[in-house]
């Protein structure tokens, strides 16, 4: 029998519940010094480890250890609570800062819009009325009705830009007029002319234009 096999059997015999070794193995151990030494060493090792299993390490001052554990737990809980408080405080501060920021941003936006509207209003109201007999007005009439509404807008635009006296208001008006249909544009222009205290002759011309438009 090979020594390796014997040593394996010895291992099983020493460390498990095998009660007896086979006669063949016992004979081998008796006649083989190497396996015999292995067998003796294994028995001693087993005895010593079993004894070490019986020797219990002693926990000195178990109450002290319990108290240390509970003290650490208490500290941990305290830290956890203060961390929660810190978190809420920081969150509250952040929310307050965010609110202020939003108020400032939106307030400024609103201020800019209101300021722009006021300026626009002021600029529009500062623009003088167009005189009835101005070349500008005459030009408006000369474009209509022969050349149609498209030409009125084009001519009006270039004419008003050229005058420069009422630049902003005129440009603003042109922008609006450009969005309207030609009939609406014409009607509005005519309504404005009526309001400008024009002469009877001129009023007749305007009325004839009005009638012509309505007939269309």
């Amino acid at each position, binding site marked *: 029998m090979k020594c390796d096999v014997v040593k394996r059997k010895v291992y099983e015999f020493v460390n498990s519940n095998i009660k007896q070794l086979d006669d063949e193995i016992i004979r081998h151990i008796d006649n083989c010094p190497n396996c015999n030494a292995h067998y003796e060493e294994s028995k001693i090792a087993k005895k010593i480890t079993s004894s*070490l299993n019986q020797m219990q*390490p002693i926990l000195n001052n178990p109450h002290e250890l319990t108290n240390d554990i509970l003290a650490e737990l208490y500290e941990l809980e305290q830290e956890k609570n203060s961390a929660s408080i810190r978190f809420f405080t920081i969150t509250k501060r952040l929310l307050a800062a965010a609110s202020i920021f939003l108020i400032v941003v939106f307030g400024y936006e609103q201020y800019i819009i209101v300021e722009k509207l006021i300026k626009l209003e002021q600029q529009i109201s500062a623009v003088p009325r167009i005189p009835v007999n101005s070349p500008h007005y005459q030009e408006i009439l000369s474009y209509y009705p022969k050349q149609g509404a498209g030409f009125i807008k084009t001519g009006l635009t270039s004419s008003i830009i050229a005058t420069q006296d009422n630049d902003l208001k005129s440009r603003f008006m042109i922008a609006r007029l450009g969005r309207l249909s030609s009939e609406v544009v014409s009607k509005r222009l005519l309504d404005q002319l009526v309001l400008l205290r024009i002469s009877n002759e001129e009023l007749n011309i305007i009325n004839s234009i009005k009638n012509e438009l309505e007939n269309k």
Partner: protein
Amino acid sequence: MQMDIVNIIKEVKSGNKTAFKNLVEEYQEYAFRMAFRVLSNEEDAKDVVQDSFIKIWKSINSFDAKLKFTTWIYKIVINCAIDKLRSSKSKNTINIDKVSENLCRIDRTNPDEQIENKELGNIITCISDGLPEKQKLVFVLRDIQGLDSHEVEKILEMTDTSVKSNLYNARQSVRKKLSKLLAYERRTI
């Protein structure tokens, strides 16, 4: 007894610190023995027990009642002990003469007497010194702590085959070490 533990766990889960104290008192000694046998040092073992119970408090809600509670606790203790083992750089100076003398005494007689923690730690250190981590853990839990193979498998999350092979190799190394230590003692007598 089992019912008591069930109630204690239930109370600890609900945050009852008195119940936790009972749990600590019930298991700290066993946890200490296990940690000591792995680390061979009383102070390190106490630190590990302390860390382990804090972990137990924190993770008690993850405990599955289908598992054996002691296995769950020992697993935590062993994991903490492994961390300590890996981080601990310092080695105690061991008096080989004293270790050999103690081993001879154990071999010759059947001592019922208790030996000091320090001496016991030195013996365990000497016989398990140089073993790879897995072999050392399997050997300590199976042979010195006296757990059964099934429990060792669960605690160390190892297969049956792995436990058996690591244990076999560890026992062979321990046998050789013991043989040398005992021979050293015989020479010096």
